[in-house]
């Protein structure tokens, strides 16, 4: 058992660290879901791709470096520690790409992955529907067989990044039958195609990170089906594993935030001596234990990521852990800031984003059910 980095890993980490130090924009970019921010984030992604850093784990022919999973983890840590911009392409990079690499054809990979890495094509998720949230298999958007492809009709909602994205991937019902998990087809759809209407939804945090997608007889060619028609549920569950697992939420985001939290707590004069701020009790305050717990949990997530290189961690457990950690961490930061939290330039945004974590990528109730059934082997709840 060891945590040693070999020479290649050290060189890679140093390359990433140096490149980020020289290239990360000094100030924050405009919001990713605004028109201006859309352009700024795409331009940032182009620079990452030009440096060969957009997706280091991908095969070389698609724009990656065929780097081992450890390097993807190291990249994630360095990226967040450097305070680099949010990845506008994350739905594609972390969710669709692993699905394509596992289930897609070589033609699909060659056509879709390189422009994805350069953020020439930004992808949205099209999973949930107004009546199909946690019960995703009850989805009703249709894929009707037509000459040379499929015609899509229906409504998707809570589609992350759809407001600025070029294309979307999702599940559609291609045959009706008694088994709800059969007859679903995994399709990729052009959001600029005739018949598509995207209506951004304003969120709790004021942004429009997700949107409704209305589809009215939208044509999708056969080439944009992933896996076999009707086999979409199985393919989708592999994307779900990525979404819940470590590929979407690497440890860097949490370890970086935990470090910022500890610094915040120290700088607030909470350690010893007279309180620097009138709302803080003198001496050691009661937030210290929570600050330590946030740091411990972030480190646990990091070590679990390293451990997962030798033994996979169940994705449901991973999703439960990071989403609860994110809320806990940000709640603690707000409490340390006291009444000044409200006007803080940084923490409230992270807090509002963290609140979404236990809901998206499968609610935490669904995750607990999945874990109980698949990992612990407990009997299903009758439905």
């Amino acid at each position, binding site marked *: *058992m060891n945590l040693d980095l070999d020479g290649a890993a050290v060189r890679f980490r140093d390359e990433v660290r140096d490149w980020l130090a020289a290239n990360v924009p000094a100030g924050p970019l405009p919001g990713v879901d605004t028109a201006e921010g859309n352009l700024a984030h795409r331009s940032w992604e182009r620079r990452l791709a030009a440096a060969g850093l957009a997706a280091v784990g991908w095969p070389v022919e698609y724009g990656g470096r065929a780097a081992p999973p450890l390097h993807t983890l190291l990249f994630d840590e360095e990226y967040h520690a450097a305070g680099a911009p949010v990845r506008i392409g994350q739905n594609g990079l972390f969710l669709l790409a692993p699905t394509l690499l596992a289930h897609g054809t070589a033609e699909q990979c060659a056509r879709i992955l390189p422009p994805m890495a350069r953020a020439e094509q930004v992808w949205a998720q099209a999973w949930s529907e107004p009546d199909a949230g946690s019960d995703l298999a009850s989805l009703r958007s249709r894929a009707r067989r037509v000459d040379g492809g499929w015609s899509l009709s229906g409504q998707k909602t809570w589609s992350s990044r759809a407001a600025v994205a070029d294309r979307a991937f999702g599940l559609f019902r291609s045959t009706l039958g008694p088994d709800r998990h059969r007859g679903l087809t995994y399709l990729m759809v052009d959001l600029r195609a005739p018949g598509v209407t995207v209506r951004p939804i304003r969120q709790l945090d004021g942004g429009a990170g997700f949107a409704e997608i209305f589809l009215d007889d939208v044509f999708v060619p056969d080439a944009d089906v992933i896996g076999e028609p009707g086999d979409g549920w199985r393919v989708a569950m592999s994307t779900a594993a990525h979404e819940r697992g470590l590929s979407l939420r690497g440890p860097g985001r949490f370890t970086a935030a935990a470090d910022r939290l500890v610094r915040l707590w120290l700088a607030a004069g909470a350690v010893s001596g007279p309180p620097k701020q009138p709302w803080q009790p003198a001496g050691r305050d009661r937030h210290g*234990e929570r600050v330590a717990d946030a740091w411990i949990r972030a480190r646990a997530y990091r*070590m679990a990521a390293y*451990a997962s290189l030798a033994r996979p961690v169940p994705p449901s457990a991973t999703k*439960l852990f990071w989403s609860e950690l994110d809320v806990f961490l940000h709640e603690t930061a707000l409490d340390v800031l006291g009444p000044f939290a409200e006007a803080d330039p940084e923490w409230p945004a992270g807090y509002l984003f963290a609140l979404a974590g236990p809901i998206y990528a499968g609610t935490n109730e669904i995750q*607990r059910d999945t*874990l*109980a059934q698949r*990992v612990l082997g*407990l009997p299903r709840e009758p439905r």
Partner: protein
Amino acid sequence: MRLAPSEEQLAFADSLHAMLAAADLPKVSAAWADGDPGAGRALWSALAGAGVTGLLVPERWGGHDAGPVDLIVACEELGHHAVPGPLAESVAAVPALLTAAATAPNRPRDAAREWLPALARGRLVASLVAPPWLPFAADGDGADLILVTDGDEIRQGHARSVLPSLNPARRLSEVTPGALIASGQDSGLAMELGVLACSAQLLGAARALLERSVDYAKQRTQFGRPIGSFQAVRHQLADVAVAIEFAQPLLYAAAVALKPPPEPPERDPAAGRCVRPVTDEPLDVSAAKVACGEAARRAARVALQVHGAVGYTREHGLWRWLGLVRVLDLAWGTPSWHRARILTGLASEWRESGDHPAAAVRWEPAHPYRKEGFE
């Protein structure tokens, strides 16, 4: 980079598991609780045969000179089966203390040669007093050797009076310090190894509690179906599984952090620096202790709730883990103490890195053996 036990270590854990599963632990524990250590001492000999008691004893005194990773692999199984006795003391801290005493600046007696061979062979069971972490000697009345360590001193201790423990399978002794064994030595690593062993026991206990609760939830039916199909039950068990899943990597990281550095230090010629960047000994040990304790306490609470009244009976056997978990969580440094050490360590890191206002960091690092801790 491999943060997982090796095949050999997994096989070691499996063989211990098989041995302990066959050892009728409920009977051993019940006898131990009633003050009859016979069966427990027999089990101790069997553990010695399996190599457990000599793990941290150097070869020249009849031990295996194994490291912290083997230690956690063994101690996790000991906790898994709720083996009674002063385990973190006798298997981890005491052999390391006696080994350190062998090179102490002042050592009136050759304690290592005197006791380590018998300890490795399982003929000597040792307990330890180390205030404020361990104010009493666990199972000191039946121990063959009690050490008292306070700062850089080690003395032999003598059991005075026996106190009952919250854990029925354990008794505590108040101890009078006696003759000096060594002084001027660094007891730090020995005590960290004790924390590590205790953390591993806690994690093993958490796993056992979850396994038993899951089994029970599959078998027990109410309202015509297994209680494990009710969300109110299965979700609690899922949370326990998550706590265990994310405590274990911290335990591994702590063991790695306590490993002696590779000789000579592995250096990457291109980078020109030591490539062990991601561990931090005191912080990782403390993080493991807090996380394993938290997982175990959650597992214990849920286990009792899932079992209901039957879990509350002595006959059922859940008590063996419930008591163990609660006392081990508070021993070897309370969770509050370990959190405070983490914050202190992080504060000094930033002070040293120079990007932190020095004025804010005036928290003296806590000393494990000083009474004015952080509790």
